[in-house]
């Protein structure tokens, strides 16, 4: 069974290496197929591990396999090891399964791009990095995967490197993620100093010795990493800009890899978070704040991919609420269903963008209902799953998080209300997008650029979207909180939930959330979907604030970037030029002068040389005699 996990980890890396080494030797098409095949093999490996674990006793579902000692320093050793347990296997299935569908979709989407091979090599590396992150058998390997995910996202967001905006977005994502990496590394330093190890087992067993402030510090550092990677407040600004990458990349970042890593981290290191309840509550609070903020901003976005990006931030906010409250299984379950419907939404939007010659502005779309019936139905399934309408996937996973919030005192009720408000917003922005893109009259842009013969894209795109639509429809049925909960049971040995909502809480939350979601859809219909839509009420200042994403970018620019840039300029003028550059010049001039002085000794006259030799010999002789 452990070989399945190793296969799962190594196969995408092998594909990336083959594509890179093969270079022009393999065709662009073959590179795409190779990457798809490798992620498919990874999924098979994950399945093998999954079934091997299923057949075992729940108490015997944790297996650590160490290839070799990766690095050692003094008494500290870290092995190159992978951990196979219910949590990592669940993540492996999601990452490689959804990842394989997305890579397969890319074969059609990226067809004709001059740098397809580079694209597929990066995609394979991305999947490998995420698998390393979730399979790594200790915190150090997790950090390695964490950093590599950041690197791969940088490479893929900036894939179209001739666009300055793509480069800027890639840099922004990298820097934001680096902040999180740094806080995580600092937390690990504290752990090494206090517990002498980064192995999960040792760290969790000895985390009791950390003491009050140290445990809070470690949890805060881990939360910093999670917040940066998952694009939660206050490090969320990189995610909407990351839409500069190709659409399948966005799907991969949002569904299978990257942004879900933060939730995984919290669930994986939950013994640490449980000893720092304040930080845990902070995580849940940040999630709730993010889900509201992202929902509001999504209302005014006009780029179809950005609307979906904000919905991701919002949904990850729900997962943070779940993980922060100790409802780990619910958070992970939502992570899984979210992977299905978010990949579906991105890829369906990708089909639309593909058909409309790269247009992403929803104001230029409209009336695509009859033109793209297949895409429209898939998009509708994804939207309903996102809003959480029964019986689509989101209904089962999101509502169980809300129910868990009710079992956490007054703070839980605050989060509960925020989550419910988020549901209304979700219905509103999702169906605003849906009605604007697919409903109404055909816009001038659509009439000009849509070609019937183009259809809805090649088989590789439509088939993968269809599979995901199926998953977004039925994927939630595996757990229905009041009746059956295999996901919770599955994760029980790894992360025992802290909250146990009563059955009436489940019913109440589900009912209210469903009503609010439908209300959101209804409001969207009134303003955007009805045959004669009402004029949208305008609140200019609010709208402007939301369009500027609540001025986070401007604030960071003002508080961090500008002072830093000004300080750098000042230091350049006061230190760099006079001291560092000046000292170089002075040093050069000084050595020239000294050299010239010594060269004066070289008279070229044999007599002076002879005199020097004779007199030195005389001096040596005198000294020799005198000393003796």
């Amino acid at each position: 069974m452990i070989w399945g996990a190793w296969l799962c980890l190594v196969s995408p890396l092998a594909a990336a290496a083959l594509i890179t080494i093969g270079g022009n030797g393999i065709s662009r098409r073959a590179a795409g197929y190779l990457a798809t095949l490798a992620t498919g093999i990874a999924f098979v490996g994950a399945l093998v591990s999954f079934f091997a674990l299923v057949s075992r006793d729940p108490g015997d579902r944790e297996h650590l396999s160490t290839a070799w000692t990766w690095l050692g320093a003094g008494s500290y050793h870290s092995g190159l090891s992978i951990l196979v347990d219910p949590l990592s296997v669940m993540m492996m299935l999601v990452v490689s399964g959804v990842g394989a569908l997305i890579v397969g979709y890319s074969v059609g989407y990226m067809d004709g791009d001059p740098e397809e091979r580079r694209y597929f090599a990066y995609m394979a590396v991305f999947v490998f990095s995420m698998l390393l992150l979730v399979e790594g058998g200790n915190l150090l390997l997790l950090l390695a995967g964490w950093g590599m995910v950041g690197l791969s996202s940088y490479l893929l967001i900036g894939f179209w490197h001739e666009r300055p905006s793509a480069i800027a977005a890639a840099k922004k994502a990298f820097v934001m993620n680096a902040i999180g990496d740094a806080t995580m590394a600092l937390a690990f330093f504290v752990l090494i100093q206090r517990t002498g190890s980064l192995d999960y087992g040792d760290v969790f067993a000895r985390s009791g010795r950390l003491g009050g402030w140290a445990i809070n510090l470690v949890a805060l550092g881990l939360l910093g990493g999670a917040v940066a990677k998952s694009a939660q407040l206050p490090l969320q600004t990189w995610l909407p800009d990351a839409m500069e990458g190709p659409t399948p990349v966005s799907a991969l970042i949002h569904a299978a890899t990257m942004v879900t890593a933060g939730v995984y981290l919290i669930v994986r290191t939950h013994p640490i978070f449980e000893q720092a309840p304040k930080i845990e509550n902070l995580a849940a609070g940040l999630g709730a704040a993010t889900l509201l903020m992202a929902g509001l901003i999504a209302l005014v976005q006009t780029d179809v991919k950005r609307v979906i990006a904000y919905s991701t931030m919002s949904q990850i906010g729900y997962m943070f609420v779940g993980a922060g409250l100790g409802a780990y299984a619910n958070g992970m379950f939502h992570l899984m269903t979210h992977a299905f419907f978010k990949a579906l939404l991105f890829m369906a939007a990708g089909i639309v963008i593909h058909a409309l010659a790269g247009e992403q502005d929803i104001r230029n779309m409209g009336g695509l209902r009859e033109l793209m019936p297949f895409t429209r139905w898939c998009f509708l399934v994804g939207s309903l799953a996102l809003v959480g309408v029964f019986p689509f996937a989101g209904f089962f996973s999101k509502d169980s998080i809300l129910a868990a919030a009710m079992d956490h005192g007054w703070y839980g009720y605050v989060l509960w209300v925020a989550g419910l408000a988020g549901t209304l917003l979700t219905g509103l922005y999702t169906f605003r997008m849906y009605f604007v893109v697919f409903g109404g009259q055909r816009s001038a842009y659509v009439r000009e650029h849509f070609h019937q013969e183009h259809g809805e894209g090649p088989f590789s795109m439509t088939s993968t979207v269809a599979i995901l639509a199926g998953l977004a429809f039925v994927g939630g049925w595996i757990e229905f909180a009041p009746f059956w909960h295999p996901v919770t049971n599955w994760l029980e040995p790894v992360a025992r939930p802290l909250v146990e909502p009563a059955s009436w809480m489940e019913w109440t939350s589900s009912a209210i959330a469903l009503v609010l979601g439908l209300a959101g859809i209804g409001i969207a219909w009134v303003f955007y979907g009805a045959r004669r839509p009402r004029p949208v009420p305008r609140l200019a200042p609010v709208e402007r604030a939301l369009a500027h994403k609540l001025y986070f970018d401007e604030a960071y620019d003002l508080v961090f970037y500008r002072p830093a840039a000004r300080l750098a300029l000042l230091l350049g003028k006061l230190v760099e030029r006079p001291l560092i550059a000046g000292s170089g010049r002075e040093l050069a001039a000084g050595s020239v002068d000294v050299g010239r002085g010594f060269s004066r000794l070289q008279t070229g006259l044999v007599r002076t040389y002879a005199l020097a030799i004779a007199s030195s010999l005389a001096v040596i002789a005198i000294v020799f005699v005198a000393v003796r």
Partner: protein
Amino acid sequence: VTIAILGPEVSWYLGVAAFLFATGAFGVLVRRSPLIVLLSLEIMLNGANLALIAFSRHHGRGDGQIFALSVMAIAASEVVVGLGLIVAMSRKRVALDIDKLNVLRG
């Protein structure tokens, strides 16, 4: 086996040797003709040779004398090279004045 040493003390010989060496060194330092400089060098070498032989006799061992022989051989070769250089210089009509041969001045 001790060998009776006839003649003056070793210090007398050393005195003569030092005088020869100093004369030669003085010649090297003050003369400008390369020919005379070479000649002065030979005088220095002979002073050193005398010291070697004197000590050799003083200690009653032969190695100093052997050393003096090799010094003579080397001095002879050196004179050949030096004189050859001087002939070549005069052939090229280079001034035979070592103070003017200062191409290596820094």
